[in-house]
């Protein structure tokens, strides 16, 4: 991906697709510096003592703002108000939410929500969230614009094996639900080949019957290198719009 102008950032928080009411997103990740400088760091060649550090606690923060809307669970005000103080799934895509697109995946506490402005303003909103899991650089494993009415599986991606000490992290954003007693149970599968001839379920989301978000993880080591989203749908005339994002960290 080369240089580009921000025009189509996709932002998903819980069961809300905030894209069309969002005009600013900022993701940041920090690692605290723990200084370990000691007299042993003296370099006689340069006659200097060089500072030495260790990485300490890591943290992630997300801030976003845009145009305020309300009226159903998928609107920013309804979703933000019900999500205040709640740890939820957040996914941000810098350019598009198409299958395989770059996605930043995190689980975060919605820590701040502001609304209201000056007379004449387009009614604004601002929100902040503090990460409670690693910020994962991953991809879209199921795009939000493809309605699913039956069980199936998505495109497989070679993310590589998960070594010891690392995990797979995945988010599910259920954005739209229709039908009679509809239920979707999404899962993450892996295999050692791109045809998924012997797929193994590595993590399963809780069955969803309404819009909302979920996060889960699968701990390594896992030697499989191919990964995909899959789902089981039940109900009468069910139809779901959902996004699955995943990555390894």
């Amino acid at each position, binding site marked *: 991906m080369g240089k580009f102008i921000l*025009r189509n950032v996709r932002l998903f928080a819980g069961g809300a697709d905030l*894209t*069309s009411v969002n*005009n600013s997103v900022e993701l940041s990740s920090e690692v605290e510096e723990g200084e370990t400088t000691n007299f042993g760091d003296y370099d006689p060649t340069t006659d200097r003592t060089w500072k030495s550090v260790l990485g300490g606690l890591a943290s992630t923060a997300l801030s976003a703002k*845009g*145009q305020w809307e309300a009226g159903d669970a998928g609107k920013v005000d309804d979703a933000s108000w019900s999500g205040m103080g709640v740890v939820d799934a957040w996914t941000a895509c810098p350019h598009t939410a198409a299958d395989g697109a770059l996605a930043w995946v995190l689980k975060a506490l919605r820590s701040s929500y502001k609304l209201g402005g000056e007379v004449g303003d*387009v009614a604004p909103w601002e929100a902040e969230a503090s990460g409670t899991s690693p910020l994962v650089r991953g991809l879209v494993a199921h795009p939000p614009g493809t309605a699913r009415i039956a069980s199936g599986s998505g495109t497989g991606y070679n993310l590589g094996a998960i070594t010891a000490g690392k995990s797979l992290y995945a988010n599910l954003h259920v954005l739209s639900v229709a039908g009679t007693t509809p239920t979707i149970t999404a899962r993450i599968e892996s295999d050692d080949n791109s045809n998924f001839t012997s797929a193994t379920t590595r993590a399963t989301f809780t069955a969803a019957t309404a819009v909302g978000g979920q996060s889960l993880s699968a701990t390594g080591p896992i030697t499989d290198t191919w990964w995909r989203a899959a789902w089981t749908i039940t109900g009468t005339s069910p139809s779901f719009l959902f996004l699955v994002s995943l990555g390894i960290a």
Partner: protein
Amino acid sequence: MDIQAVRQGLADRADTIAGLTVTAHVPDSVTEPHFFPAEVDVNFDQAYGRGMDELMVTCRVLVGRADDAASQALLSSYLKGSGATSLKAAIEGTPGVAQTLGGACDDLRVERVSGFRFYEHSGSRYVGAEIVIRVIGEGD
């Protein structure tokens, strides 16, 4: 947003003022007093994913100059903030209710009046003013 639909919607709202000639286009000849949307400035991409565009529509109201005092008084009546002859009130509609111009936009605000002066239009001179309206709606 469909710019022409917005212009038509603004004209339709202004047309609720009795005695005012209204067109959705800049007319070749004016039947005064005459209101019409003129220039349109577009700010695209006010939200990601073509979620919102913003239009700044400059409308004009022109009044004949047969009697200088009466014409300016009539013009002033159109520029009031409220009342039966108020363009702001007619265009914005019910306070607290988004003005969608029949679905052409999400909301609008009559922001200001400027240029209370003489105008020349198609070779004739009128006294008039410009009304600047901010319109927001989905990017198309």
